């Protein structure tokens, strides 16, 4: 399980960079900014703590967890990512979060809406089990409506079967 999950993440990273080279123009999807955490300037110039920008910087990709086809279980790698998310949410106790659930394109629309909801809830439930108050987390499913990887292949589908945590304040 662990190995598979890692492989998926690596492939995802490769696909992303490949995409960027080919077609930088039509890439950027709204919520996630891709600004890689540049190692150079540390504290003062960085994003304001508790903001979405700060959260994605701190998570370094662990704001997103990935699922197998038709599955919604939280594996060990997902647990590690969610632990880190939970720590952040506990550190900034006034921050609220939304978990967005997604499915790949190889399913029917309505089932995928339900499946995305199920994945988002699985992530939320794990965060709650780690002590994050349930009333601070909302969920929304986009089904197959908002892919981040645009190809029609196993790598792209693996990247799109995901639950993404967004912080709001």
């Amino acid at each position, binding site marked *: 399980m662990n190995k598979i999950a890692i492989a998926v993440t690596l492939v995802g990273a490769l696909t992303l960079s490949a995409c960027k080279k080919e077609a930088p123009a039509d890439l950027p999807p709204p919520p996630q900014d891709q600004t890689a955490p540049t190692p150079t300037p540390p504290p003062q110039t960085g994003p304001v703590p508790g903001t979405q920008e700060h959260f994605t910087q701190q998570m370094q990709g662990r704001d997103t967890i990935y699922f197998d086809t038709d599955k919604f279980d939280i594996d060990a790698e997902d647990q590690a990512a969610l632990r880190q998310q939970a720590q952040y949410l506990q550190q900034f106790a006034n921050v609220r979060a939304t978990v967005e659930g997604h499915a790949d394109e190889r399913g029917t629309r309505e089932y995928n809406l339900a499946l995305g909801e199920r994945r988002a809830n699985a992530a939320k*439930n794990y965060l709650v089990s780690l002590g994050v108050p349930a009333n601070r987390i909302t969920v929304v499913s986009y089904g197959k409506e908002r892919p981040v990887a645009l190809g029609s292949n196993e790598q792209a589908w693996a990247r799109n079967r995901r639950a993404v945590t967004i912080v709001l304040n």
Partner: protein
Amino acid sequence: MLLRSVLIAAALSLFAAPVAAQVAAPAVNPPATIVIPEDEGGLSGTVTDESAWQDLGIAIPAFATNRDGPTPANSQGTSALGVELARVIFGDLRNNGLFRPVGPDSLPRPSYPQITAPAWSTWQGRAAEMLVHGYVRAGDDDRLTVGCYLYDVQLQQELVREGWVVAPTDWRRAAHKCADLVYSRLSGESPFFDSKIAYIAETGPKDNRVKRLAIMDSDGANHRFITNGQATALTPRYSPDYSKIAYVSYLNGYARIYVYDIGTGRQTLVTESPNPTFAPRWSPDGRRLLYSMAVGGNTDIYSVSAAGGGSPQRLTDAPGIDVGGSYSPDGSRIVFESDRSGNQQIYVMNVDGSNQRRISFFGGRAATPEWSPRGDQIAFTHIAGDLRIAVMSPNGGGLRHLTDSWQDEAPTWAPNGRIVQFFRTQRNSGETSIWQVDLTGRNERRLATPVGASDPAWGPVLP
């Protein structure tokens, strides 16, 4: 403004009552040789599909008019409108696998008196077995009277006739009614051309798709966007009387079913709930709506009064995803989709939720079931590698695939249960288009839409 005029047209069309078709034909039979030379053309010119069983030749020359006068329906007058009427009928009758129609652009034009007294020799010489004649007259109130006649050329006999009075904006409906008359008389099937389709118009790149609610006639004409695309719209369904459309919108950030009233342009939530609602479905009598609602990741199917008020009735309670649903034509049963067995399969239950049982047992996953208006078939998406449109009987037997493409999904039935419409997604680009196929699976064609198109929902035949 466009919206208003279309709305008025829709309202007026309700008064398009059939009238007895009668032509004040002169007593004298005119000579049978009147031909407009520039309209002449061969019969085979427009036939593309030569399947052996598509052998019933139907000639559809331009409709005649008693007097070429002005009409709001056509800037060039009623004579030009007569050509357009025949073109619409020709467009309806081709591509459905039953007929080999020839349209007005390659046929001589009959005179007004010939509508009730066809020039038989002209048509016998053209290998047309059937002949459609018609006329259009503009009244003083601008309303149009359209007569439609079907003749058997061999027998030199009238088979059926009917006429309609329509508002000028509804002239295409008269043509569809005529095509329905011909189709029904010759095939023995129920009519379906005079009907409408709600769907989702798609534009923009795959990762930022704009999805708008839109409607059109069954042949793609009278197209109209209803929502502006600011909120993603999904899975519309026309109410059986065409007065409303239930659909899913992310209007307030979350998926919720809204019921859009076409007359007033207002929309209401189908149910007040903090949970997402999706997959709206009307009962055949329009009184109830099915919807699916996810609570804590578990999705179930509910039924609620379409008029509002009353508490929702929960129909499923299995752990997992129970979603969608489609009423049997008599309203007594519901076919739906559930993954309670581990993956998507198709189930049937009574309308109160009792007696739930699985009917799909042929491998792969089975999704989006839609009960045929005739009651004898269930169309669905079969997921086994690719996504394909298939049909089966209501007991789960007789599986037949109607399409074979990379991704075809979400079938919707023609009102007569002989044709299935669905949408097709292109690999990689994600571009979508609406297609239809008949129950033989042999006659498949794409519908012309202004932009990308998905989630078609075919309504009943208009009154």
